[in-house]
């Protein structure tokens, strides 16, 4: 298992390097001069030239990239053009927010998606199955921003139950923090739940018709035990992979949901940074997100070992 783990890790490193080159190059390909945005409405040429020197934008692009890598290896991801804040600081500030949103959304997604998937597979072809499918499909098709605004108008404006938007750090007030994050997590969660439900359903369908499930039933085990223990456990592998990938995606930030609920997470930060051509910030976040994604993938692989004894032996 250790060898396998190390091998996967070795593959991850070139992936990260390639991603960083790719993102760097893409940003330079974007039309538009970051300094025109940065210099303000007046665009004083003297200021423009100074900033160009300061941020080394006159250097050839490969040199700019190598400078960035050199600094990054020393833990310095640069400074935001826009706010003069250290990128590492910005990431440290946003990562907990993004993680909290990702975890809470995933809780919603799992709590809705998996039971719905199991039930609809078990009652395949019945009204329950169709209803679950329609609900799942709507979860996928309803745009997040629409659902978000509707929830705000209903829950916050009309019923005044939850704060309309914003963010409260859990360290400051845990209860308030969860309350403010409830709606955005639900909005994100429902969309993910739909995907999870569909995958759970198809995995369960495959397993429920297999021989060992029939055997288990023949042994006289309770239906609950057959479905949850024997069938579900074997259907778990694709679900775990999917969950890990979904979580990886969530770490990248959920732009629209963050925008609607004004959550200061990665998504909003990176979009604003792209529009302002805030190169260092985009680069820094992509790096963190890529690492996050790779780590989630690794964890998913590890989970297979725990779930599937046959892999452990190999």
């Amino acid at each position, binding site marked *: 298992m250790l060898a396998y783990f190390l091998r996967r890790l070795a593959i991850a490193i070139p992936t990260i390097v390639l991603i960083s080159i790719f993102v760097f190059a893409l940003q330079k390909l*974007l*039309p*538009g*001069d*970051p300094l*025109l*945005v*940065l*210099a*303000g*409405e*007046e*665009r*004083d*040429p*003297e*200021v423009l030239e*100074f*900033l160009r020197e*300061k941020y080394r934008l006159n250097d050839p692009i490969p040199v700019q990239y190598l400078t960035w890598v050199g600094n990054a290896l020393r833990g310095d991801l640069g400074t935001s053009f*826009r*706010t*003069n*804040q250290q990128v590492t600081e*910005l990431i440290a*500030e*946003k990562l907990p927010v993004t993680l909290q949103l990702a975890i809470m959304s995933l809780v919603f997604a799992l709590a809705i998606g998996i039971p719905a998937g199991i039930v609809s597979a078990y009652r395949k072809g019945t009204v329950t199955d169709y209803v679950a499918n329609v609900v799942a499909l709507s979860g996928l098709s309803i745009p997040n921003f629409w659902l978000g*605004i509707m929830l*705000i*108008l209903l829950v*916050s*404006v009309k019923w*005044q139950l939850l*704060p*309309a*938007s*914003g*963010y409260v750090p859990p360290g400051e007030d845990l209860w308030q923090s969860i309350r403010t994050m409830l709606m955005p997590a639900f909005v994100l969660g429902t969309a993910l739940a739909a995907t999870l439900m569909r995958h759970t359903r198809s995995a369960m369908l495959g397993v429920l018709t297999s021989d060992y499930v029939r055997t288990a039933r023949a042994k006289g085990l309770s239906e609950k035990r057959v479905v949850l223990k024997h069938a579900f456990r074997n259907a778990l592998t694709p679900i775990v992979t999917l969950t890990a990938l979904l979580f990886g995606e969530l770490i990248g930030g959920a732009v629209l949901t963050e*925008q*609607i*609920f*004004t959550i*200061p997470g990665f998504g*909003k*930060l990176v979009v*604003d940074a792209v*529009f*302002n*051509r805030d190169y260092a910030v985009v680069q820094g976040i992509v790096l963190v997100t890529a690492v996050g994604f790779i780590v989630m993938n690794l964890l998913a692989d590890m989970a297979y070992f725990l779930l599937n004894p046959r892999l452990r032996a190999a």
Partner: protein
Amino acid sequence: MKNLTFTTAALALMASGAMAQDLRIALQSDADVLDPDQSRTFVGRIVYASLCDKLVDITPDLEIVPQLATEWSVAEDGMSIDMTVREGVVFHDGTPFNAQAVADNIDRSQTLEESRRKSELSSIESVEVTGDYTLTLNLTAPDATVMAQLADRAGMMISPTAAAEAGVDFGLNPVCSGPFSFGERVAQDRIVLNKFADYWNAEAINFDSVTFLPIPDTTVRLANLQSGDIHILERLAPTDLAQAEADEGINVVSAVSLGYQGITFNVGNGENAESPFGADKRLRQAFSHAMDREAINQVVFEGAYAPGNQSFPPTSPWYNADFPIEPRDVEKAKALLAEAGYPDGVDLTVQVPNTTIPLQLMQVVQAMAAEAGIRIEIVSKEFATLLADQSAGDYFASQIGWSGRVDPDGNIHQFVTTDGGINDSGFSHPDVDAALNAARSEADVAARKAKYDEARAILIDEAPLVYLYHQSWITALDAGIEGFTPYPDGMIRLEGVTLSE
């Protein structure tokens, strides 16, 4: 009886505002760096209105009034300004404010390499500290715009001690002398300011803290106000006006801005100026005649903005009344087109920022122009790209606006004079240059107005920029907010503002 005493006491407590009161203000976007010398965003200035005092302020009628400077007088020859500053003022870090602090501040604005204020203060040659609270600004040439510059970021006073210590990183922990001091900032989430107990005008301030929350989505911003999560919302979208006005818990106020919105034609910026519209002013005039400015205001902005045809709004004292907004005249536009040699119509490519409002505006403009035979092709570009192309002359016509400055000079000079810093149009006319340069140094208001009128007459005829409307700063307030005055600069001034729950 006992009960009654208790109730009275409780009421008295409430009336005296014993509860710590936090005012929550929603901003349309996040501010940039909080250093008045380096900052460049509109929302940044809204935060400064509570954080940093300026040497002078403006009234809603654009008169310049004392803030940290109590008196000033311009010398006979216009080459210097004597100024007296307020005594007993301290910065948030306890550093005393005096004439030397003013000198240090102007020096920083002029010499800090990252400073965006250099051009605003370029006419100040030196600052002479003549006493603890008196100083003289020596100018390179007579300049009527200096005091107005000092009513904005260039006149914001920051603590010289803190500035010397923090250098270019001052913006991470700004120290000024305004009614509120910097508390904390979480990027894209909030900026918190706390009441400054030693503020010179502390009795006019009724809040213990102010929290600025960037909420970009207009619907969500309004929802926050309706649910009571925020108290003041800046720049309400005109499309939300009806809903906000119908809500009894919300009051809406507005003021016409100092800026303008319109179309800039490329008349002399590179090869693209050779286009039909760049080469022939009759086509640009035709374009202007084809526009129904009132209809644009009604259709796109629910009538909430002000139609315009000059860089100054019709409500401005600098507006040239000899050239009022003309009603739409399609026949005249067609005649001009025919005269210019395009009886069958002419094509025009206009670049537009790729956001909702500019696109809606351009579609209305497109439809109006089409009826006069001007076939507009809309090219929407993301803002940074649009700006770069416009600056490089890589466009034919561009839909872009200006946020506005207090002094008229800031809204016209740099756009249409030959060497103007933002003359993306490439417009050049010796008489306009002469008139606008003269207006810059003319201290007499009537004589100055005459110079602007002179330039305006040429600009209306040449039409390098066709102005369409002036935005209004629409502020939505919780019904409990009292004493709020909207200003044409769009700033939120909290002196005398109260909130009853």
